[in-house]
């Protein structure tokens, strides 16, 4: 009798533990948001939202402090868009190859190899970019003066976003019912036609989700971009901005937070950048989630 009681209590405790762990995730996100909000609100007493988001000069130690975040926002945008331009086609192609075209033995090697890319620490990518890849570009292309520029960040980030994109695209392809594939072949289409005109469109939502998640990964990356983009908070000029140094939002926080005393305007400004990053990443992940859920519903 007692043993049964004990077993039930044990089970109750374990269930509560697991439930709590699950809820903790939500609670943590809410707390982080609250923390960011609380430390960035004082900023809005000092500057207007317009001055912050549209200001073109970030110079926190000059006089009163210039906190225009636009160069940083554009910096993050350039690096992220560049990373997507490189990683989406590459990731999609790799996923197609792994899912449909590779012989089984090659698949067994490729899949873990791509996933191993995700295990490489970001600082290692930064280090390789800064000491090897960047100077190589600077030496071989006259237009690139310094081995630290936006596109270099994009290139290194491409390798970091790749595993995410590849694995989610692959999942998306697996979720497409085999009938679609087979009926396309049965109707006389070649394998390539089937892949490009039946499989990929059917997996469309999953691919979009993969892109969005890769985007979230790229925009939040700090260490790599801090090391390879040069950290010049300029307003990038068109396409030339890709081969010149820029500064991302994440690198700004990392570089300046250490020396900013608590409670100063600069401190609050950095938190405002953090808040903006949080909102962007949260938004991107939420949209990706909705898209994934919709694609699963479509297929079901």
């Amino acid at each position, binding site marked *: 009798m007692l043993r049964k009681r004990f077993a039930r209590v044990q089970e*109750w405790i374990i269930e*509560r533990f697991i439930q709590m762990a699950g809820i903790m995730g939500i609670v943590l996100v809410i707390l982080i948001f609250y923390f960011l909000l609380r430390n960035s609100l004082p900023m809005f007493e000092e500057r207007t939202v317009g001055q912050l988001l549209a200001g073109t000069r970030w110079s926190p130690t000059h006089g009163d402090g210039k906190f225009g975040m636009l160069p940083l926002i554009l910096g993050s945008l350039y690096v992220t868009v560049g990373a997507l331009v490189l990683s989406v086609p590459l990731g999609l192609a790799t996923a197609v190859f792994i899912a449909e075209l590779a012989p089984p033995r090659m698949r067994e090697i490729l899949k873990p190899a791509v996933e191993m890319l995700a295990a490489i620490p970001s600082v290692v990518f930064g280090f390789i970019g800064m000491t090897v890849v960047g100077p190589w570009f600077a030496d071989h292309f006259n237009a690139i003066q310094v081995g630290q520029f936006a596109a270099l960040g994009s290139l290194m980030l491409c390798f970091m976003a790749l595993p995410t994109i590849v694995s989610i695209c692959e999942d998306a392809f697996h979720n497409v019912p085999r009938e679609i594939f087979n009926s396309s072949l049965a109707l006389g289409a070649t394998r390539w036609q089937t892949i490009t005109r039946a499989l990929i469109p059917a997996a469309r939502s999953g691919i979009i989700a993969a892109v969005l998640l890769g985007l979230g990964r790229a925009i939040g990356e700090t260490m790599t971009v801090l090391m390879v983009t040069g950290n010049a908070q300029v307003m990038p000029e068109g396409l030339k901005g890709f081969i010149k140094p820029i500064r991302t939002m994440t690198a700004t926080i990392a570089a300046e937070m250490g*020396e900013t005393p608590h409670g100063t305007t600069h401190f609050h400004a950095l938190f405002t950048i953090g808040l903006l990053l949080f909102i962007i990443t949260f938004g991107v992940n939420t949209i990706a989630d909705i898209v994934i859920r919709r694609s699963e519903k479509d297929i079901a």
Partner: protein
Amino acid sequence: MKSTRIGLILLVLAFLVASVALMGCPPQDETGDEAMMPPEDTPMDEEPAEGGTSTIEIIGSTTVLPIATAWAEAYHEAHQDVDVNVSGGGSGNGIKALIDQTADIAISSREIKDSERELAQQNDVNPIEHMVAYDGIAPIVHPDNPVGSLTIEQLSDIYSGEVTKWSEVGVAGMANDDIVVVSRDSASGTFESWKEMVIQMGGEAPDRDYAPAALKKNSNKDVRQTVADTASAIGYIGLGYIDDSVKTVAVVPMSGGDAIKPTHDNVQDQSYPIARGLYMYTDGEPTGTVADFLDWGMGEDGQALVEQEGFVRVE
């Protein structure tokens, strides 16, 4: 199940209460400064317990870092029971650590700012300044760059973005005429000193600021590396970091005359115009191990190390 829900709510509440209590954050109003973490009760510098080891934490300027590191090693040799931990991050980092009481000594290549002093007072920290060495800041270029000397005005123009091409300062024959301006970031004391003495020309151009296009690197070594790798770059580093990978530029002072090379001797006889003191800050007058350490550093042994690292001793 009712008991399930109650149990869950209670557990989550208990966890939240525990974490808030541990954080120790008092309810705040949003105006003005707020110290997110109240300073810890235990002061950092401790008297060496009989037979135990004590630690000195030194944080701050990467310019002063070689001096602090050399002192730390030599002092530890002489006093095995004292561990001296040194780390960089920039003068701003060091002073902030002193204010937050996570460092015993802040090393800085600039004087403490008024705003920092105020924050220190609010945290019951009283920064006391000790000048430990003299240093010069040397403008550096790539070894293949033919430039020999520049005036302070030219340097100011380059760093504020008024001048963007090497040909505008009389340097011909560069493969790429655009000047790549390399700087430290705002955590650095060298950044501040350079801004004041060069960009703002010692106060004559108080509105001038760094050009946004200047690359912000986070240490002397990083600046030197970037300039060494980039043919059309210009940067600035402390005397102690000059080596063969870069070429120094002689500077013509504001008062005119000959261009002075940034060398140890020229800083010592005060002819080199871009020179400043290097400082260590303590919370109040130093006591115990910290006082001993600083006295040692200002003595013959410590100052000999200052010279060895390429800086200039204080008399």
